[in-house]
Every structure is written in C-alpha cells, then in structure tokens.
C-alpha cells in the first residue's frame, strides 16, 4: 500500500471535511468530533452529491443534496436507503494525514 501525504489533521475542522482531487477522482476526507479520520469517494450513491459538503455527525455524513446518510466507516447508505461508496484507507501519524491511493494514482506518481 502506498501512502500519500495530504496535509495535517488540523487542516480539517472537527465534524468537517475537505476534498482532494486524485487521479481516481474526487475524494472526501472527514474528521469526526472525536478526531477519527475517514476518506470516501466524494460522490453520493444516490445522485452524486458532494458528500464533503454535508454535515458530519458521529461517524456519518448527511449528503447536502437529498439528505441521504452515509456511514464513513463502511461507505454504506444508512436507514432505508440502499447504496455504497468506496472507502479509502487513511491514517494520521504525528498529526500528518496520509491516504492510500489506488493503482492509477501510484502510476501517476
């Protein structure tokens, strides 16, 4: 697995997100209220809404377009909705953020 540095944990507000353009598409990186970090595709399985713009609560995000709730841990839609987004490995070391990009990204780098 190849880890790519993408900045600091403190670049993302608590209960917030930022997005990053990668060769695999736009990825949303989330920081929860208890400082856990998750990365998923910035693309709601419903109508493609930018999940990075949603409200973060617990380990979930509510899509800003039609209020689907997506689990940051599994990428799965919660409640009665069905759908799933890709989750991307992400880690924090000494306050720095890393994500593991896919093959295309590795080739590009």
């Amino acid at each position, binding site marked *: 697995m190849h880890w*790519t540095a993408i*900045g600091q944990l403190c670049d993302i507000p608590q209960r917030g997100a*930022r997005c990053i353009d990668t060769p695999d598409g736009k990825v949303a*990186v989330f920081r*929860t209220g208890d400082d856990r970090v998750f990365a998923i595709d910035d693309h709601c399985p419903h109508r493609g809404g930018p999940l990075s713009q*949603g409200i973060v609560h*617990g380990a979930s995000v509510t899509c800003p377009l039609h209020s689907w709730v997506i689990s940051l841990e599994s990428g799965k839609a919660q409640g009665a909705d069905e759908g799933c987004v890709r989750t991307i490995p992400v880690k924090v070391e000494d306050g720095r953020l890393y994500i593991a990009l896919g093959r295309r990204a590795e080739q590009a*780098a």
Partner: protein
Amino acid sequence: MTEKLVIIGNGMAPGRMLEHLFEATPGRYEVTIFNAEPRVNYDRIMLSPVLSGEKDYEQIIIHGDGWYIKNGITLYKGHRVTTIDRAAKTVTSEHGFTAPYDKLVIATGSVPFILPVPGNSLPGVLSYRDLDDVNAMLLAAQSRAKAIVIGGGLLGLEAAAGLKSRDMDVTVLHLMPTLMERQLDAPAGYMLQRELEGRGIKVVTKAHTKAIVGERKVEGVELADGRIIPASLVVMAAGIRPNAWLAKAAGLDVNRGILVDTGMHTSDPDIYALGECAEVGGYVYGLVAPLYEMARVAAAHLSGDDTAIFVHNDTPTKLKVTGVDLFSLGDFADGEDRQEIVLRDAAAGIYKRLVLKDNRIIGTVLYGETADGAWFNDLKKKQVDISEMRDTLIFGQAYQGGAPLDPMAAVAALPDDAEICGCNGVCKSKIVGTIKEKGLTSLDDVRAHTKASASCGSCTGLVEQLMALTLGDAYSPAAVQPICACADLGHDDVRRLIKAKGLKTIHAVMQELEWKTSCGCAKCRPALNYYLVCEWPGEYADDYQSRFINERAHANIQKDGTYSVVPRMWGGVTSAKELRAIADVVDKFAIPAVKVTGGQRIDMLGIKKADLPAVWADLGKAGFVSGHAYAKGLRTVKTCVGTDWCRFGTQDSTGLGIRIEKFMWGSWTPAKVKMAVSGCPRNCAEATCKDVGVICVDSGYEIHFAGAAGLDIKGTEVLGLVKTEDETLEVIVALVQMYREQARYLERIYKWAKRIGIAEIRRQVLDDGERRRAFYDRFVFSQQFAQVDPWSERVSGVHKHEFRPLTAAGLPQAAE
C-alpha cells in the same frame, strides 16, 4: 339551614380546605372569603418559575373565577380584614365592609422578615412573597442592572436564579457560612454554591448586612466589614414570620403563630387557623405538605368529623431551580449516637449522605441525583431496619438485591403506601386506585383527581411511570414530537431549557438535555445552532460545522455540486454600474447561467466552489454584499415603484422596502423570510402572499403577514394599519423578533402563526406597546452581531479551508 363560613386569606391552604369541605358536605356552608391580594387562589410554589420565565401567571392559577362562582363563594378581592369582633361574630375589612360568621377560619399566612437595618424601606427594597413582588422584580429586571438577594435559603436562591435568568447581575448575601444550612449539610451547601457561581451568580457567605444605602432609592448594601456592594434592587428573603397580629388583636392565644390544637381550633371554639400563620405542637410551617395536611384536618372538623388530627412529619425539601437537583429530609447533624453513609462523585456533581441512628434512617441529603429521595423518605417514615442492605443502601433502591432495576421496575417495586407526591402527600395506591376507578388516561386528569404532581411538579416523572404501569399500552404520554431521534424533548422544550438553564454551547445543550448521540445529527444540530444564535447574541460562537452547506458557503449548492450566487439589490433596485460589475464577473469566471429571481434579484449559477471567494471579491469592489439567498434569514424585500413613478402610488414603497431591508438584513430566522412592499392596493409587489407584506394606502400602511406561495398557497392575514413608516418598521421588526424567539426551526411564519394564533401575535406586537418595544430592542441588539457581510469576511481569509481542496504531495492534480 346553611351556616356562614368566613375565611380570612385566600392562599393555597384555605383553597385546599374548601375543596375537601365541598366534597365532604356540599351545601352546608355559605362561604365568604376576604383576600388582601386582588386576585384568585394561585400556586405560590410556582412563583419562582414565573420569575424565571418558565411559566406565566395564568398557568399557576389553582382556582379560577369560575370555581368561586360554581361553589357560591363570595370572594372579596383586595379586601384586608382589620378587625374580628368575637362577641358580635363579625369581621370587618379596611373598606368598612362587615360580614357575620358562624365559623371563622384565619389563614393570613406569613409576612417576610425585613432586616431591621437603616434604609430597609427605600424604594427598590422588595420581599418575595406574592405575585406583586414578582411583578415588581420583573419590572426592575428590565433594566438588567445589579440585584442583591439577602438570604441564601430556599426562597432567596430561587429569587436569585430567577433574576439571573432575567439577565440581572445577581449577588446573594448569606449570613451563615454555607447556603441553605437548615436543609443542607456543609458539603452539599458548598456544591450548590459552586453550581450557582458557575451560572454567574455571586455568593457572599458570612455576610452581615449593616445597612441598605442610597439617597432616594436603593444604591447598594453595606456589610459589617465596611464593603459596599452596589445594586439598584434588593430582595429581602431572610425568612418569614407567621402573620398573627389580627388574631392577637382579637384576643386569641398567640405565640410565634396563632396557637391551635391538633384539630386546628384556636382558643375560640368557633375560630380555626391554618397555614403559615398557625402554630401547632410548637411548630410553624412554611412548606406546602404540612399546610395541606392542616387543610384536610380543618375541613374534617368543619364537616363534623372530630377524629381527624394533625401529626408532625418531616417534609422533604427541594429547590426549584431548573437544573439543580437537591433533596433534603429530616435531621442530618452529626452526633455520638449517629452514623453516616456518604457517596461522593465530584466529577459528576453527585453527593449523597444518609444519617443513621440504630440502623434506621433519620436524615438524608441528596445532591445532583435525587431519584431515590422518595424511597429513602419511605424507609425513614416507616423506621425500616436497614442493616440487611446497609452495604448497598446508598446506591438506591435499584441496587437492592441483585441486578439493577430499570426505573419502571423500581416504581413497580415501591410499596403501596410509598409517598409519590411530597407536596400533596399522595401515595402510590391512591394514584393507582384513582386511575383505575375513574379511568384516567392523561397526566392532567391524574393531577386534577389526585393532586399528585400538581404543585411543584418534581414528581411528574414518577406519576407518569405509575400511569404507564397501571394503564400499560393504553397510556401514551403527551404526544410531543421530539426534535429528532437524538433527543426526547420537543423543539419548544429545548428552546425553553436553553434559556432557563443558560445553555450556551451545542455541547452543553446535548449534555444537559441528555442527547442520545455523541454529536447530534443533521436535523438537530442546525436547529440548536439557530436557537443558540437567537438566544445569546454576541455570546454564542456560531458553529459553522452545524450549518447546512449553503449557510457555510454563503451560496446555494446546485445539483452538480456547483454554487449559485445572488448579490443583494436593496428593494430590487439596481444601476448600470452594478449591472456592469455583474456582467464582468460573469465573463471573467465563465459563469454558465444568469437569471432573474422571483424576489427581484440576479442569480449567477454554476460557479465552482473554489472560485467563490474571488467572485465575491470582484462583486464587493462594486459595492455588493451577500444577498443571503441561501439563508434561513431575511431574503428579499420586493417592491414596486410607488410614488416615485407610479400614477397610482400612495406612498414611497421603494424607499420603505429598502429601509426595511437595510434594517433587517443579516438576521437569522427559523426559516427563510421573504417580504414585499406594494405602493397601492393593486399590489404589484405581490405582498399578500409573503411572510411579511405591506400594502400602502392613502391613510398609512397596512401590515400583512403569514402568507405563503410555495408548497402551500395562502393569502396573508392583516396584522393592522399604522400611520407612519417608523411605526411600520417597528411593528415588522417586533413581529419578526417574536417569530425568531418562538417558532420552531424550519417553521415558516404562516405555520407558526397558525399554531400560536393570529390574535395572540396581534396582541403581542401591535396592541401591547411595551412588549413591541422590547421585541424591537432585542432585535436591534442582536443585529449588532448579525450584520456582518459574510462575503467580505471570506474574501479577507476567514474560513479559507472551506473553499480550497487539500493537495497531495507529489501528485499531479487530476484534470476536472
């Protein structure tokens, strides 16, 4: 033949006595009441919630005027009795009115103890006994000035908390080293002091008041150590004295109070005394439970049952300050022959102490968690030997014998004669029996029939659990829709408690109101953020992460994740310069679509988020500010051209629209607010389907509100006609402020108005000038903090992270 019963005093004790009497011997007496206060019987225990704003007077009335009429009672309001003529068997009021009696009941209550110090009669010195005192305090609180409460007992602390919640700067002066020393031991008194100080109430213990200082009115209090504490209001809550002078003047036996036997007879067999003015067995009482017991006994004797006797019982004490849970009972002084069990959890703010003698509970102090108070009270009353459960006793009833009981099981396990309602002395079997016998299904019914939880209300939870146990599935508690799945409370309760408990962060709300999730959800967080912004302007730091993306990015998100931007055009008026600036921005950023909106504005659609700050910078240079087309706030004021151009125009509708918009922009509201001003009844600005609209007419301005033209279509209601632009602005601002303070999040004005009632809104913002002015002032205060252009703030760099993506080291940026 009916007998004449005269009652002097119209407080809670004689009110209760009459209820018993009418039940036992209906029609036996013709009743006349003299009330020194100009009103009916109300619940004095609930004066503190009235002071703090959690209830109003109408909600605490026990017997309305109808009750007196129905029972044939002659009630003289505002009549103070000055003489009792025992030989002639008559009483005479200060207005010279005389009434004959066969039986007389004296229930003159108590008078506050006023410290005998210089200055104690200056204007601004109040006591805390009745509704007039509360009204005077509320008036004084409007100045938001400094207040001093003398006396750190039950009454004084409730007064202090109430004044604090009315935004006064409050200091409590207490003679003793710890607060409420008659009810609490030193550790609990200390915890209480810390809690109150945490709420911003200053507490000075060991404070000897030397004088009230001031020339013509109160200016402060001087202590024996020379300190002078400034204040414009001083509340004396240093204790009460039985009001016995009338009985004394009539030659009845009087000690501290009017002496009565265990049947409530005074030294004259035709005269009874009860309530705070009576002394029985060496005790005088101030808490409601023994007073109600006196009422029961007196009623029994008046109806011919001579067997009823009054027996002294310790009464548990509770402090009615929202958010402070304390319970105290019996004797808790240290002693050679006594042992104690103590549980402390400083972090959780819990302190419990049981005082034991011969393996029996004789005293209890609970602070922070008081659910087991009823159980300890029961054990004490029955003198239960607790040696078997001594190891686990302090943990409460749920921990006796194996696994913890859930609260329902704990209530089920209470014995039939366990006291549920301390104020009214109602036991479990009485509640359960009445529910079954009368087929009661609502809490209000149970209160009406048993009086349980009808006084201070602190046992409401227990009563509801008993209802659930008795009725099973047939019981559905008051159907208040919770704010979301994270909480049990509805919007109105949450708003009320934010105010009453002084909660100033989302975290504090979730902690105090027992949210079930760690950080809420996308439904409750924006609502809480709004409630806090509205309640604490200037104090609460807006939590952007709890705002919907549109309010975070100050633009409207579109289906493809791009944004649309609407600059403000005051009243819908623009100019060549503004239009050129918009055209330049559209060209520079290759904005794909430009459209005129329904609110007379120009919308630029399809802007990439990262471009927003640069777009705003260019628009800002041309003088544009944010149009708030994205906000739950004031959107647009649409206008027609009015007297400037129109041959039919009656007033300057454009000018008024611009004036309203400039005054109100930036304010956050529960849902969006759209307005319009039309210059004549032809109504070209379509003001009659807006949240707030104005129709100009020759004689002035007709103010409309509660219209809708979206999911629902609804014409506006007319609020009223005013004569000048200034009045129009004041009424509209007051209306919007009332809506801001009272509506539920996302509730548009027309829905709120339907719930509250058009007449009530008209009463508060049109008819009641004082209230209108207060709404207006609060809006103006809040605008100081709200009228900040978010676009120029973002251009200057605030919240930069919101608009820039992260970048990966060593990665080429993906092409969009």
